[in-house]
């Protein structure tokens, strides 16, 4: 049997990508493709799980039964999405536990937005509207990503995601239809989450080292700046509709470009937060490490029982 060279395999692989044919778990793939996918998918999974914390924070203080139930459902969805994504990552030959250890050791990241605290009930509105809104921009694009299990996970996630953003926006709308104190609460939440939400799309294209290769391999379908622009264009009218002011004095509609011009992102803040110096980085990782460590005896107990049961059967 003639062995194909790495060159031929790579060429065939790229042809598949270019023809939008899905790459499946047992297909040959370049090592860097596998590594890039493991990084991207596991970071996406970690983001869903860590994202449960800032929102979970408000479940016990939700102001009505309906809000409590909806928030519980949303956070449960996020846990489920994390699970779908870990499931996709595991098809690449790495275990969920390994990727979680990488997270705890700071070797991989999660979305920087979750390093900000949720200080008021209005933050539940801002997070749902802006953070889920930004996530959806990214996710719809990823439904056509080249790796089969990832694309399929994204399709499932997108189906469930639409209610998350609506709920967040609905909370903001309720507040803006309420008392002066509620309106102020909503505006304050927007003021704190707007720029971090824009930072969710990552560094500018010029600064982003992974983008070019990820685009060639169709792991990413749009660049950071493209998605960020789409997000601003979609979100500004939503804010204006309910009487909120985007905290950007440079924001204005550019008729010529057909897009909103917006102000400069504070990249110093971005790199500080991504690098571990954000308001809640320490707490988020500590909470996840604690859950894993304090849960070890539970996981062990279940395994011990399973092993005993098996012995009893034999």
């Amino acid at each position, binding site marked *: *049997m*003639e062995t*194909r060279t790495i060159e*031929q395999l790579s060429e*065939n692989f790229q*042809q*598949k990508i270019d023809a939008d044919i899905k790459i*499946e778990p*047992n*297909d*040959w793939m370049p090592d860097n493709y596998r590594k890039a996918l493991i990084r991207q998918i596991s970071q996406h999974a970690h983001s869903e799980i860590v994202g449960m914390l800032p929102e979970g924070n408000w479940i016990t203080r939700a102001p009505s039964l309906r809000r409590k139930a909806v928030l519980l459902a949303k956070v*449960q969805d996020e846990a*489920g999405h994390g*699970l*779908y994504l870990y*499931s*996709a990552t*595991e098809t690449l030959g790495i*275990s*969920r*536990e*390994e990727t979680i250890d990488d997270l705890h050791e700071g070797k991989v990241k999660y979305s920087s937005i979750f390093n900000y605290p949720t200080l008021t009930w209005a933050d539940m509105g801002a997070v749902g509207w802006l953070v889920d809104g930004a996530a959806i921009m990214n996710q719809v694009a990823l439904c056509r990503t080249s790796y089969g299990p990832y694309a399929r*996970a994204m399709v*499932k996630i997108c189906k469930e995601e639409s209610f998350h953003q609506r709920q967040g926006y609905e909370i903001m709308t309720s507040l803006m239809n309420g008392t002066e104190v509620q309106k102020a609460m909503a505006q304050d939440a927007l003021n704190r989450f707007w720029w971090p939400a824009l930072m969710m799309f990552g560094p500018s294209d010029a600064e982003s080292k992974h983008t070019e290769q990820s685009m060639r391999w169709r792991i990413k379908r749009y660049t950071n700046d493209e998605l960020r622009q789409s997000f601003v264009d979609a979100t500004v009218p939503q804010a204006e509709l309910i009487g909120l002011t985007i905290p950007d004095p440079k924001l204005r509609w550019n008729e010529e470009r057909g897009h909103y011009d917006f102000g400069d992102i504070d990249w110093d803040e971005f790199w500080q937060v991504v690098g571990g110096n954000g308001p809640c980085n320490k707490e988020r990782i500590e909470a996840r490490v604690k859950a894993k460590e304090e849960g*070890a005896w539970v*996981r*062990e107990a*279940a*395994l011990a*029982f*399973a092993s005993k*049961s098996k012995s009893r059967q034999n």
Partner: protein
Amino acid sequence: MSSNEWPLWEVFIRSKQGLNHKHVGSLRAPDAAMALQNARDVYTRRSEGVSIWVMQSALITASDPKESGPMFEPADSKVYRHPTFYDLPDGIEHM
């Protein structure tokens, strides 16, 4: 990799109106009973009347997919389809 991790299970769901079980993903569980329980929570959170199958990933046998389609393969690598491996009777010229 720690041996203390719960085994991985593949999950197959047949929806209420469905004709067959579809592979929907995987999850971690210590044993079959918990795998079914977890599958119900994770993969059917929104519907009833579904049938769930779970199978330990390590126990599934899969075929090695050959890259298919003449467009991407030099014919030489496709050993089992190469015509020289089949003896044709004389007189059959175009097959």
